[in-house]
């Protein structure tokens, strides 16, 4: 699993890659929360996430809640079918702001 942070048009893109599971989700959680501390527009690019489990979803939920509390923008982009399956089973597909691409996500915040 890797987590790469880049700046794009004033927003922060967090690119996750690999499996987000019980082993790797603590790092994802910490990375996202740190990012939200200093940035108020965060898009998580999930195009390279092959697998995400409940602990990974929990990290996303926590980041989402922090962003709402701070009034920041937090969105997911490029969510794979498998990841989408978990989000919809958890009925979080309607809670998160989910977009086809990071560009779409940023445009949505426009």
């Amino acid at each position, binding site marked *: 699993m890797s987590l790469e942070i880049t700046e794009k048009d004033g927003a922060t893109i967090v690119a996750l890659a690999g*499996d987000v*599971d*019980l*082993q790797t989700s603590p790092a994802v959680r910490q990375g996202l929360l740190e990012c939200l501390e200093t940035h108020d527009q965060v898009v998580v690019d999930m195009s390279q996430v092959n*697998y995400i*489990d*409940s*602990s990974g*979803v*929990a*990290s996303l*939920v*926590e980041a989402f*809640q922090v962003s709402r509390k701070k009034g920041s923008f937090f969105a997911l982009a490029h969510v794979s*079918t*498998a990841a989408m*399956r*978990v989000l919809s*089973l*958890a*009925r*979080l597909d*309607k*809670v998160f702001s989910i977009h086809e691409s990071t560009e779409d996500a940023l445009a949505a915040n426009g």
Partner: protein
Amino acid sequence: MSEAVDEMIADVVDGGEVRNHLGLIAAMTREFTATRDADVMAKTGLERITKYVGAEASSLFLIDDNGKELVCSACSGPVDITGLRIPADAGIVGRVYNERSGQMVRDVTKDADFGAMVDEQTGFTTKSILCAPLSLGDECLGCIEIINKNTGDGLFEADDLTLLETLAGAATLAIHNFRLTQQVVAQERERHELELAAQIQRQLLPPAGGPEFPVHGINMAARSVSGDFYDILPLADGRIWFNVGDVSGKGMNAALLMAKTSSLFRCLAKATDSPGRLFDAINSELCETGTHGMFVTMAGGLFDPATGKILMANAGHEPPLLLDGYGEQFTFFEAEAPPLGIMAGIAGPEGYPSQEIDLNGGSFYIFTDGLTEATTFGGGMLGIDGARALIREHAEESPDLQLNSITGAVRLPGQSLRDDLTMLIIQDSGTAEEKAAAAAPAPVSDDVVSGQILRIRVPAKANRLKVIRAGTEQAAAFCEADEAWTVDLVMAVDEACQNVIRHAYVGWDEPGDIVVDFIRDRDRLIVHLMDFADPVDQSKIKSRDLDEVRPGGLGVHLIKSVTDEAIFVDPPEGVGNLFKLTKRL
């Protein structure tokens, strides 16, 4: 009794006999216990003590709830200082309170702690003070203070202090007694109010329709008030609104939110015929006023007896079941939206998603998790399979009898319910021709193989999950399962292994192993997860994903959502726990 005390005081004052102290205390204690009014009790008690000691004035100080100030709660004498507050560490009263010992200040002018402020404000002249603590074990409730002796030089003697300390003991017990009584009265009042609330709640439930009416419901509260509800609302055109809901949490808060939600449903349903928009409106109202972390799962909609069709929305509620007209096949309907009261504005212009369901002569069952999570006679949880079996067993009965039979089966004699239980039945009286036309259930194919496919044995560590997932994919591929099926199985096995990794070997220096067996059983794949730790307390494992949008607790829900069965079964010798997943191919 007052006359008796007066007589005794007169006797003591005239005769000056110390032996009468005991009689006075006994009489006063009797008087204290007979009085229900704290103020009257304190006031008369003080007056008696003042008169008996032969003093000019007296006051009763009680420590406030924070323990920071002493408050004058009663006084006797020329100046009324009731309500006066002094810091708990100030003055002679404060000193007695903190040192927990009675003190005599014969001449206040010689005591540095004496605060003259009260005298300055009231014009009273304090010469001599007696003060005794109201001690109760380690606790001190406050002090009794007596000012200026009436006789002689106006100064107190050592004997006076002994007497006051003794009287203070009786007063302490009286105050303590009174407070205990107050608590009991408050509890009784609370119980009474709860019973009233339960009565009002029962009145919120709809009246039962006749035997011919197609919709029937039942609600049983685990405590006096319920967080569950159902409603049935017939419209003039023959259609019928119905719902079943469950408020997260229990007790009075949940009951109030239940009352609010069911009222909103009843009120707003009259202005629309779209379940989706109705749910959206209820959600907006709930979110607007705040639910303090609570939320509501609800399935509800419109049933049209003329067509046998239901239009239903489901906000995070336990999937309702349709049993076909033959009493054979079940279909279940997953929630398509999160619970109500979590977030406003999550639905589109058409509101919450709704689904059209053709009952086609069958029966439709909506229930709360009080049914699926109810304890059975065997001690286990009923579960969705148990619920289906119960429903099928009683399917031939009339709706009201079914409700009684099913809820009766999970109501163990002499035990209260673990959770509120609510159930609603909608019966479609499809014609005989329609029933005959209903498609026959597909026969189960026997053309399948059986046997073990794969066994994985690894240490129960997070870094082995990837291996287990890869093995699971292979097992699914061996069964020629498609991609979506495989994704779901991988998720279920991974989440189940996570539970072992996270909880099974807690407290072990090095975690033990986890064994995952993949077994093909005709048209099903069975996965056995075994660990070698102590058996888990199954009552603590509960799907709580939708209890609130917060991190954690999703796993069990995910497992249940994508498998046909997920249960703990009795493990073989030498195995700690055996968790069995079954998924139809």
